[in-house]
């Protein structure tokens, strides 16, 4: 058969495919799903940006009110101002008024996947003390029902629904002809089975790829705009290639199922079971493997350790001894009376507490990193999990970014403590005289100098993951296509 005949056959198959009402219905449903996925993604990203903006406003409000208090309290008054009411005091400000956040901003491609963002906080208010065993306490319940099911986002459409559309469109190609007896007629023609299968599945692949890539681009353009997407252009191109490879993987699976020559019912059952295994059962099994490879440290054990520390400190002689030791280490010249000052006791207590739970926090950090690492290593075993991970990494909603975010937040907390501690200590050692009759301490007004969280977006990880995913998917697709090619060597007996 000449190349011109092959092209002719392919064109005929494409015309046939596009002439079927089922094809149009499937493609229309897919486009609608893609638009809906992009719409929900855009809504989520807008909500995240709004939350970050509100947090920034709250931070500005706290500074504004502290400055106003500074002006108000710089005048003689008979109103007693306790330290917990005093934002002009470094200690009072740090423990009661400080409003700063660790922020994980949405990436340019955040619209692609909800990932872990609906269960992991992307915005954490920094605080100190016994109640904070770990930082990641902030979360929004939203609707638990939705959390259980997962979001209807682009990742869900691309990873879970696209293969089903492929199966619906290509799952019974050749099998239907076999069931209806038409295959005998085709086999009687001077054409090799590989040519026929190539034309049939090639046509399905071309139609699906064209519809899927243009549909995804349209959906993204409609609901997110091309501006933010252009920033992640390179990654986006790799993801488009990965998506194409994923689609071809499923077309190749359809071809392989058809090449078994067991009829349409068998092919459909096999393909749907393969879909269930690869998109649901295998990722679930891999999750069990990740659990086994990266055992979870106990949050309750960490709470227990924190309470032991709190109990020890609350016992009068022990607490005094710890405070004295802390003070002696930082200010050997300080008098013994200073160790009972509330700010000294509090700082000593927090340092003691941090030391007591440090190993648990470290274990949690290592666990988060190990979970992300093992998930990344095992995901290529499932094409669906691999594509999902690539989409989540591009969206910045993956576990690895969150682990890095938690580590950065912990570092930020340390930097805040390092900022305030010398100021509080200096004031305790050498109190600044205030105006006569003023009740507040008036020793702190460096509100703008308080460190800000260095929010970051990893530019490397998304394209690296997308490239890895593309490589894995191409290899799997070639493997399936080769197996189908081999089996299509002859018509069934």
């Amino acid at each position: 058969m000449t190349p011109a005949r092959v092209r002719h056959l392919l064109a005929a198959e494409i015309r046939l495919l596009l002439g079927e009402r089922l094809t149009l219905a499937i493609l229309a449903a897919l486009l609608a799903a893609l638009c809906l996925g992009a719409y929900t993604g855009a809504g989520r990203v807008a909500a995240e940006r709004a939350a970050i903006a509100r947090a920034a406003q709250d931070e500005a409000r706290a500074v504004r009110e502290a400055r106003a208090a500074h002006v108000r309290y710089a005048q003689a008054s008979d109103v007693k101002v306790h330290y917990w009411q005093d934002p002009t005091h470094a200690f009072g400000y740090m423990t009661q008024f400080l409003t700063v956040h660790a922020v994980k901003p949405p990436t340019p491609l955040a619209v692609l996947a909800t990932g872990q963002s609906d269960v992991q906080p992307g915005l954490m208010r920094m605080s100190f003390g016994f109640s904070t065993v770990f930082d990641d306490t902030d979360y929004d319940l939203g609707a638990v029902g939705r959390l259980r099911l997962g979001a209807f986002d682009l990742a869900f459409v691309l990873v879970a629904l696209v293969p089903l559309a492929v199966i619906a469109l290509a799952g019974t190609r050749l099998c239907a002809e076999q069931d209806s007896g038409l295959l005998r007629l085709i086999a009687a023609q001077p054409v090799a089975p590989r040519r026929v299968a190539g034309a049939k599945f090639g046509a399905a692949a071309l139609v699906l790829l064209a519809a899927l890539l243009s549909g995804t681009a349209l959906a993204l353009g409609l609901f997110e705009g091309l501006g933010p997407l252009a920033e992640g252009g390179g990654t986006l191109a790799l993801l488009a290639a990965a998506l194409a490879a994923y689609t071809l993987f499923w077309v190749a699976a359809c071809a392989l199922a058809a090449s078994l020559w067991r009829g349409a019912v068998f092919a459909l059952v096999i393909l749907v079971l393969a879909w269930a295994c690869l998109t649901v059962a295998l990722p679930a099994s891999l999750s069990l493997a990740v659990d086994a490879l990266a055992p979870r440290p106990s949050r309750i054990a960490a709470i227990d350790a924190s309470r032991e520390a709190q109990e020890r400190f609350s016992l009068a002689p022990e607490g005094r001894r710890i405070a004295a030791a802390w003070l002696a280490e930082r200010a050997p010249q300080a008098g013994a009376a200073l160790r009972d000052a509330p700010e000294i006791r509090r700082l000593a207590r927090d340092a003691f507490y941090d030391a007591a739970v440090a190993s648990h926090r470290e274990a949690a950090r290592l666990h988060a990193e190990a979970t992300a690492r093992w998930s990344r290593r095992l995901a290529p075993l499932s094409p669906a999990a691999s594509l999902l991970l690539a989409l989540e990494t591009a969206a910045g909603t993956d576990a690895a970014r969150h682990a890095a975010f938690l580590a950065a937040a912990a570092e930020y907390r340390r930097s805040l403590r390092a900022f305030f501690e010398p100021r509080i200590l200096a004031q305790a050692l050498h109190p600044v005289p205030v105006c006569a009759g003023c009740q507040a301490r008036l020793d702190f007004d460096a509100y703008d100098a308080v460190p800000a969280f260095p929010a970051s977006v990893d530019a490397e990880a998304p394209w690296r993951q997308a490239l890895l995913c593309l490589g894995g998917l191409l290899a799997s697709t070639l493997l399936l296509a080769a197996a189908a090619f081999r089996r299509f060597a002859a018509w069934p007996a």
Partner: protein
Amino acid sequence: MRRVAAELGLILRDARLRWTGGVLALLLIVAGLGTWREAVRYAAEVERIGLAERARWLGQDEKNPHSADHFGLWVFRPSAPLAVLDPGTEPYTGRMVRVEAHVFNDAVYRAVQDAGPLARAGLGSPADIVQLVVPLAAILLGFAAFAADRERGTLRLALGNGAAPGPLFAGRFAALLCATVLVVGLPLLALGGLAAARFGLPGWQAWPRLLAWVAAQIGYAAVFLLLAMLLSLTARTARGALAAALAVWVLLCVAAPRLAALGVETLVPARSYAETRARIEAGFRAHRTAEASDARAREVLARYGVEDPDALPVDLRGLMMTENEQHNFAVYDREFGAFFAGLAARERAYGWAGLATPRLALQALSQILAGTDFAQHAHFVWTAEAYRRGISERMNAEIRDNPQRGGRLLVAGPALWREVPPFDPAPLPLARSLRDARVPALMLALWIGLLAGAAATLVRRLRP
């Protein structure tokens, strides 16, 4: 009954049932082992730290009651016995609450936070398997019920021999349902029975919950059996019946639940946690300034007609703390009340969303019956808050009623700490759960009724 027995005999000899049953049993066992292991670990940890926290509370040295209030304790939500079958909302809601002065802390540290990104694939528990895989199994068992006979010509033979279509359909459906009970109901009952025996405390009424829960799962499977048989009645070929049934499965179990969830969130807006916290902060901010505090102190002195705090019959600090807490309680009640009411309304809407897909009806019904629904979480959070308020009120009353003159600080001891009872949260009773289950149960029943009605109509028109 003879017809059912004969059909059942045929089904039991069918390799499809052996394969389907084997895979289902394997999946249920693997998922059940995972949830069982987690339940055992959590229960042991909660018991151990619960005792340790109680000992710490009672073992405090002498101190001011307000310091004891700040010392506080952690309380933990016990897992429902049937969480082994359906963890429901438990992994998505915090189960640990820090009880301390002034602050209504939320339940923190959700299990889902510590799970990897692959954990949300959707087969983490027996309930997930029932919701997603059992329909597929039911379809594979039922799609050929009539279509294969029609394709082979044996349906014409059966009808020609005088077999009435109605009893034929009923017999096959009953046999398939029996087979489903065998491969789905019995493993679930066994797993649930073990869980009820191991974790069931009297307040949970675990056994009646288990029976109702298993019945709900069978009802759900019946929906898909009916659906598969219905399509089998109308399809000309088994291939057509299977393709249609699989398409419906994708729609009802994969796509529609997420779509319906999206619809619920859009139609039933709920206030966010961040917004609620911001409102609470705003409610406290003006109240806790030095000026506001001073004004309240003056108001108290004026109320008692004295100028010197030492002349008061009560302790000024204790009285002000008591009144302060009342203000805080009111703010918390208003804001968290609205927050939880919004979320509860949303969860209730999920029951109605069962009209769009039986999977949502079952999800809502299943977690309510298992005692792992959102209402149980909210009940725990408010129980913990009531406990916190009880401690704060008792500590503040001790200070208020024992005025200390000349700036001295009241010191209390173990006798006062012992007045605080251990934290012993009771779950919402089964009667309340059954009340909450009415809507999703109705939705599931509606699906069964509609499909049964459609089947009855189609059976009358059955053509070979």
